[in-house]
């Protein structure tokens, strides 16, 4: 150990010695003397430890039995109650825990109490010897020399070119992972089909909503009529088309020019998909007329056309223009006039196309 005992070999112009005037340091006293354990000196204590280890291994056997009994004795029939499953789960956990902890603590106790606890010191060896390094350099040089790659740049360059291009098909082959986005994100199911306006329907049962059903202060979760009848792609359409419908005192709404007729009698409909990252804005605070997204707490003010008043969203929720049809049902007079949901690279372009 000697002079190197402080862990700072003095040969490499190190930080440890820089600026310090070679102050004398404490010498490493070496590994402390070994202290005997009770089990080393007292045969009775050793015997006791032995029994304890055996007892722990025995506990493990009991745990295994608990597991097997719980597995085979508790039957999960067709009408299992949650309580039965919880009981079985707890017993399986208890059994496994005993089985494993018994073995684990037994072995560790055995190691700590009965196996030798002398600390041993082992030399560390250099990770790389200078001899090896020189030999390796020679080998590499020989290999490079034998390939002749330095003398034949034509081979080297064409190989580099070929290798650089070869992975391209591996990238291209993933082209069919998905379709091109085109303007799919810009449209929803609310667009009138063959001149027929889509009715607003209740989520999830799909029954249409009459304007008369919407009392002041109430809120409805809304899907477009016909959504539930879609087979394939139902969730895709739903993920864009869900709407929140609320009725306020018409005086508290402040529609901007051009949007005066987007509501009906204080009833307004806004996209439920947050403009932040797309969670459903599911919480409506009736008193303050605020809509709150439970994921990241973006807050939108209904009385200001769902402008963002708090949180990470940057854009107001898109409004769905609505009216009432001849039978008194609420209908969407057109699709949203901007893409709904989280922003994306081409979003502004799509919005301009919609309004063109």
């Amino acid at each position: 150990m000697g002079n190197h005992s402080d862990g700072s070999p003095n040969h490499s112009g190190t930080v440890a010695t820089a600026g310090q005037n070679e102050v004398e340091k404490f010498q490493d006293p070496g590994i402390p003397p070994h202290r005997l354990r009770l089990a080393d000196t007292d045969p009775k204590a050793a015997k006791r430890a032995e029994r304890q280890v055996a007892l722990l291994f025995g506990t493990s056997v009991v745990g295994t039995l608990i597991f097997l009994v719980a597995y085979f004795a508790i039957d999960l029939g067709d009408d299992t109650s949650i309580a039965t499953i919880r009981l079985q789960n707890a017993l399986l956990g208890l059994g496994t825990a005993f089985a494993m902890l018994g073995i684990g603590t037994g072995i560790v106790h055995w190691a700590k109490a009965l196996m030798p606890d002398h600390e041993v010191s082992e030399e560390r060896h250099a990770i790389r010897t200078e001899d090896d390094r020189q030999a390796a350099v020679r080998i590499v040089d020989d290999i490079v020399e034998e390939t002749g790659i330095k003398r034949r740049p034509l081979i080297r360059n064409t190989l580099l070119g070929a290798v650089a291009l070869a992975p391209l098909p591996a990238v291209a082959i993933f082209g069919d992972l998905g379709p091109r986005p085109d303007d799919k994100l810009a449209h929803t199911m609310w667009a009138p089909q063959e001149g027929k306006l889509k009715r607003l329907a209740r989520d999830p049962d799909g029954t249409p909503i009459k304007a008369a059903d919407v009392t002041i202060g109430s809120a409805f979760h809304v899907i477009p009529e016909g959504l539930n009848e879609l087979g394939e792609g139902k969730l895709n359409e739903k993920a864009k088309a869900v709407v929140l419908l609320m009725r306020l005192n018409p005086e508290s709404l402040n529609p901007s020019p051009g949007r005066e007729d987007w509501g009906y009698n204080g009833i307004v409909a806004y996209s439920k998909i947050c403009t932040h990252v797309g969670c459903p804005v599911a919480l409506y605070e009736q008193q303050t007329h605020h809509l709150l997204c439970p994921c990241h707490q973006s807050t939108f003010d209904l009385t200001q056309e769902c402008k963002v008043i708090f949180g990470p969203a940057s854009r107001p929720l898109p409004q769905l223009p609505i009216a009432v049809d001849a039978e008194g049902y609420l209908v969407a007079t057109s699709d949203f006039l901007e893409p709904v949901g989280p922003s994306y690279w081409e979003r502004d372009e799509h919005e301009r196309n919609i309004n063109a």
Partner: protein
Amino acid sequence: MSATSTPNAPTFVAKTKGGRITNFVDERVGGSGILREFGRKVFPDHWSFMFGEVALYSFVILLLSGTFLTFFFDPSMAETHYEGSYTPLKNVEMSVAYSSSLDISFDVRGGLFMRQVHHWSALLFVASVSVHMLRVFFTGAFRKPREMNWVVGGVLLILSMAAGFTGYSLPDDLLSGNGLRIIDGVIKSIPVVGTYISFFLFGGEFPGTVIIGRLYMLHILLVPALILLMIVLHLFMVVVHKHTQYPGPGRNDGNVVGYPLGPVYAAKAGGFFFIVFGVIALMAGFFTINPIWNYGPYDPSPVSAGTQPDWYIGFVDGALRLMPGTIGDWSVEQVWFGQVFSFNVLLPALVPAGIIFTVLFTYPWIERWITKDNREHHVLDRPRNAPTRTAIGMAGFVWYCVMWAAAGSDLIATHFHVSLNDVTYWLRALFFVGPVIAFIVTKRVALALQRKDREIALHGRETGRIVRLPHGEFIEVHAPLDEYKRYKLVGFESPSPLPAEPNAHGVVDKKEKRRALLSKWFFEDRVAPATPAELAAAHGHHGEHEAIESGESQKTLSH
């Protein structure tokens, strides 16, 4: 090999049947050499070395429980109507993936237990990898020659989070579906290619019908294979380097002090696997995790309040919450040249995680550059003995924790009956101030602890015994340390700032000046270890009763 070259040498003949089998194998693969090399290899022992073991063992448990789950799970997003034994969801329309997850929970005996074992060990896996990395950072174990292994560890941390997230989404329940929705929103905010990546990942529009199957493949094949590869690399390097050890008497950079692999260390480490398994089994048996049956199948419309992602995703989610979308009337999302830049999503999703992982991966080289320390280190630093590094680590840790806490801002608000907006405002402030405070406080605490160590080394430990001297003075008796305990307190390096040095051309360039400044910042505040001369002086002061300290002389000596 020598056996083939010397066919006439007397060959060893085993006496027992087992011995003959062992010998048969040994003659063909040479196990004796391996055993000779590793059978008695010395491993240092310390409780903080167990975090890495916990990580390894929870990964083994993940493989075991995960394999069981694959026998019953069906990663299809086809529509079906639930027919299992959980009555509240009878006949509800859902995906096959969700339905089979419910079947695992309710109709496969022990299925719920295996699901919970799998989820708990996943949480524990990421946690133990993280804590293990904190241990490695704060003790300086990443220094030469272990920088590359530190990087492998960082890759493992990322992979463990990837494994966690891909698995979390598989049951296709409402909660994980909303998690995917958020991922989709974040992906769409990426400039130029975001929309395409989203469409390619989901096979079209969100949620589509392929994402679960794709995540399943990543979760059960690609990610675990990469993790396994990294673990092999990691352990290989541990063997090459041998383990680090804490400072103490008899320990130096040239040796490794501890217990031999066989039998003590192998028994302890092997036994510990069963203990980890047992603890996970206890948790799985008694604490419900991810009760998917309460959430219902994924539907883009509903969401429940107060939902949380798994803990390791929390810091990204929290950063998303902290970022304001509008500042006054100025929108953080900008439209430039007709294209959308969603900085309100892009910045919090990428920048904090980017900074954390960049600093994490490069830190060994940063510190090496500042300190010009190119020596091999096998003896760890006690965190207090590297005050600036410890302070940097704590600053980063606090920064992470602020973001992590922000992921529960709504729960903090409802639990403590405070305004949600106020919680967010405070956390936004802490996001910037917290790391600075943490840095200053940690550094001062570390220096104070070093001074305390110094005092104990020089003046002994307080015994709590108050003695009244004949002339009426009260003193507390201090007991001197034995030389082993003292060496632990004084046997460390305390580097001082390394001034700028001219390069080969005799010029001190700008980079070197910057390095010198950083070195000053790093090592300016330092407490040198006590020296034998100081100890002699401290004792000389008291004449005959050298173990006894008077309050007065303590004052004069402690500075």
